[in-house]
């Protein structure tokens, strides 16, 4: 029984990895209509309610908020494996928080479950300055670039991007010697092949805020669903990566190899 639980991620909690940030759209007790962060009181209750605050479950109180009522993404009920999600409209929906958790690090790990729709222009899901996961460019209605950045101008790209809901992982380790070992990207438990532009640096870029659903608070808006995000300010071990990906895959009904 213990082996079965381990195999399917049962009993595992992201809290065991001491995350710096943990956002879980399936937990309705963390989603509020107001943009007031910790003091928000009105929970979302109905499909299509706006989400002004998404509370952090890491214990670090890094609650993310929309910076205007017009930017509030939308709560969607039972969209993925019977669980609720947050939908970003690709026009002007996002969250932001003043935070420098990824600044000047030699390693970090980001795990995310999301479902892209093709945006009308370049778009990003998660950005701490130039620490960006994922960024796409768009031309004539098609996605043409799929990038993950650790610093400006230096990134790894995948040849394809699944538009299905997926568990994606970004593992950065600046102590390694070259691009291919410094930046790993995985989709549904399988390592992606990255092509690199520039040099993935030994230390991550500094930043003062994190946006979720856009590149900054004013440009490059994500279109689609964000289901869960977990950020570690360290390199996850191989076992931890596997645990996290299985946990997320099992939870959201996504097959993880």
């Amino acid at each position: 029984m213990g082996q079965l639980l381990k195999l399917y991620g049962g009993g595992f909690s992201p809290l065991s990895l001491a995350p710096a940030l943990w956002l879980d759209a399936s937990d309705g007790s963390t989603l509020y209509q107001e943009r007031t962060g910790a003091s928000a009181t009105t929970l979302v209750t109905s499909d299509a309610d706006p989400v002004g605050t998404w509370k952090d479950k890491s214990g670090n109180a890094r609650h993310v908020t929309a910076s205007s009522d017009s930017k509030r993404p939308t709560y969607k009920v039972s969209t993925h494996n019977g669980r609720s999600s947050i939908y970003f409209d690709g026009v002007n929906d996002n969250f932001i928080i003043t935070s420098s958790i990824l600044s000047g690090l030699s390693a970090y790990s980001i795990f995310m479950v999301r479902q892209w729709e093709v945006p009308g222009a370049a778009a990003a899901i998660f950005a701490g300055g130039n620490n960006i996961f994922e960024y796409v460019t768009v031309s004539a209605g098609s996605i043409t670039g799929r990038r993950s950045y650790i610093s400006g101008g230096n990134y790894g790209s995948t040849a394809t991007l699944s538009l299905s809901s997926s568990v994606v992982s970004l593992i950065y380790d600046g102590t390694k010697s070259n691009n291919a070992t410094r930046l790993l990207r995985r989709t549904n438990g399988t390592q992606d092949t990255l092509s690199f532009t520039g040099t993935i640096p030994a230390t991550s870029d500094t930043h003062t805020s994190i946006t979720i659903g856009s590149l900054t608070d004013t440009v490059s808006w994500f279109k689609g669903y964000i289901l869960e995000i977990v950020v570690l300010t360290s390199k996850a071990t191989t076992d931890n990566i596997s645990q996290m990906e299985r946990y997320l895959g099992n939870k959201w009904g996504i097959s993880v190899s």
Partner: protein
Amino acid sequence: MGDQRIMTDYLFRVLLIVPSARKDGLDAFIADEFDDAEWLIVELSPTGTAPATHYATCFACTMEQSSRWAERLSTDGGVSLPPEFSYYNADQRIQFITAARPALKANTGVIVYVCRNDGEWFDVEAILAGETIKRVGEVLP
């Protein structure tokens, strides 16, 4: 037993495309009526290059908020609201705003699309294409 889910109060989804000359006025209206943060931040132009000729925002709003928007847009656009507008249900309001869209656009340049927020949304990319207007630029990190 049927569907017991509670309906959201946010029944409307609105896309506003505003000519640059009207941006400040609507920003002031938004600040007075809704929110002191800037809403009209999406830059648009016919060619997709700067400078922006139009600005857009997309948001959800309630019945009460829809009344304030309708009043403002109709006043600006010279389109009279029917006296019974406040008694209209959500679908009737959407029908009215949709019918008034050409006059609002002709009189002010402001383009308004409204749909049910709890139903199928409008296609923003198709609207932009139909209005022959594009997002300005692309910012590469």
